[in-house]
């Protein structure tokens, strides 16, 4: 496992796959541990059925630019997003791809690429729609960006009260991703 606590992360996929929410869970983990964090979404018409992405930075120092242009971690949920961002990942970084949606996972030298069939795994486990959280689990397993217990607490903090019934399923998705 690469140990990446100073996470400079890009999450990207189709609008509706939950990349913004996945980023929010990771941001909450840093908030709960009292660290610096920024979360910056793409916004605009491209979000309607097109691609969506967000930049998340976790740090122990004050954060300058919240726009991550040279990430040390990438989570990609479709092929166009993977192809768009994989070249920006710095050597020593990691890339996690949902291989159900990203058939071609090739990474440059020095970047650890990890293909997880997150959409298929989630559906088999009765967690349809939680591929994004499966990938958060996998990212955690690869980087250790927070304490394990914080991850579950971050789920509790980021799921809105009206969807509280989904907290347990989200935690299962985290565990599924960690084991994948």
């Amino acid at each position, binding site marked *: 496992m690469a140990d990446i606590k100073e996470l400079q992360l890009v999450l990207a996929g189709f609008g509706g796959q939950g990349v913004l929410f996945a980023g929010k869970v990771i941001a909450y983990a840093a*908030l709960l541990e*009292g660290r610096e964090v920024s979360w910056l979404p793409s916004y605009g018409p491209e979000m309607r059925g097109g691609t969506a992405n967000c930049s998340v930075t976790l740090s122990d120092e004050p954060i300058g630019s919240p726009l991550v242009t040279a990430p040390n971690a990438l989570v990609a949920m479709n092929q166009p997003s993977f192809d768009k961002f994989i070249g920006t990942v710095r050597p020593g970084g990691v890339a996690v791809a949902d291989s159900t949606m990203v058939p071609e996972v090739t990474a440059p030298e020095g970047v650890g690429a990890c293909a997880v069939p997150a959409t298929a795994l989630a559906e088999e486990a009765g967690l349809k729609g939680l591929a994004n959280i499966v990938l958060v689990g996998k990212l955690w397993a690869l980087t250790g960006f927070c304490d394990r217990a914080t991850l579950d607490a971050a789920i509790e903090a980021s799921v809105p009260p009206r969807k509280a019934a989904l907290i347990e399923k989200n935690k299962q998705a985290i565990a599924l991703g960690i084991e994948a």
Partner: protein
Amino acid sequence: MAPANDKVLMKGNEALAEAAMRAGCRFFFGYPITPQTELAAYMAKHMPGRGGTYLQAESEVAAINMVYGASAAGARVMTSSSSPGISLKTEGISYMAGADLPGVIINVQRGGPGLGGIQPSQSDYWQATRALGHGDFQVVVLAPSTVQEMADLAYEAFDLADKYRTPVMILADGMLGQMMEPVVLPDERSLDSLPEKPWATVGHGHKRAHNVVNSLYLTAEELERLNIERYERYAAIERDEQRAESYLTDDADIVLVAFGGAARIARSAVNLARAEGIKAGLIRPVTLWPFPADAIEPVAERGARFLTVEMNMGQMVDDVRLAVNGRAPVAFYGRTGGVIPSPEEVLDQIRALDAEGGDAA
């Protein structure tokens, strides 16, 4: 597990709206536009619970005139928009300045001119600091650079507006509005603790002469006298309210000047330059008007070179040059149209300046 220090994770737009209500803002009038919409939406959701009024007006022009009315009646009142919408509000802002009415106006800037785009920009600097409407006037312009400052400066803006009886603008951008960061929200102010407004047009049961709120003066000498009085107030603001943050400037050979979202990128670039042994620093104006010339002058005096970084074609650089007043070279780097510069491209500019400096020495 609870977050440390009562911090919450909020979007800049939402933190600003919450802080405004905590500062005693009970009236919000606006019209939707990206990228400030979450601000108005947050107001719509939370204002009624505080007994306040949220109203989506039929246009930006209507909204700013409602702000004029609520302010004349003594209320703490706010409107928000993004660049094209602010242009529509400028007539009303000029009327507010002419009637000495406090009020807080938020501009979450996007690319222009015209309808432009919806991505972050700083291309309304000149509009905010030079001509937010017709006539002889200024407004106080505050430039937050973090979500925390979106909250803190919104909270303070109401006090500044009341103290000097002037509109105050918060000049943010789409990046600051849309991003989330941890924020500690300010305390909720009791409405009883807000400053008295003896000039407000409120009912008094014939106990005093009636107050007039007006910006029409047909006698030239009277209008001149009022404008001169207002500029005496502006002189006090320029003397007492300049604010800037200096980062690693003490020994810096190259001093970046950047505000708002661009200042975050400049700060990253300064850190990259320092890691290469280049003595770079950053002055970040927090007040754009009054421009913090007092923070620039001593640095210019000792011969540091300046690099202004903006998300526009070069606007604040004029104020930097005025403050430097020929004592040091001032370079500019910017991206426009909604493009956010990367720290690496700003670093390239610092390297180039550093190389020039080496040649000169």
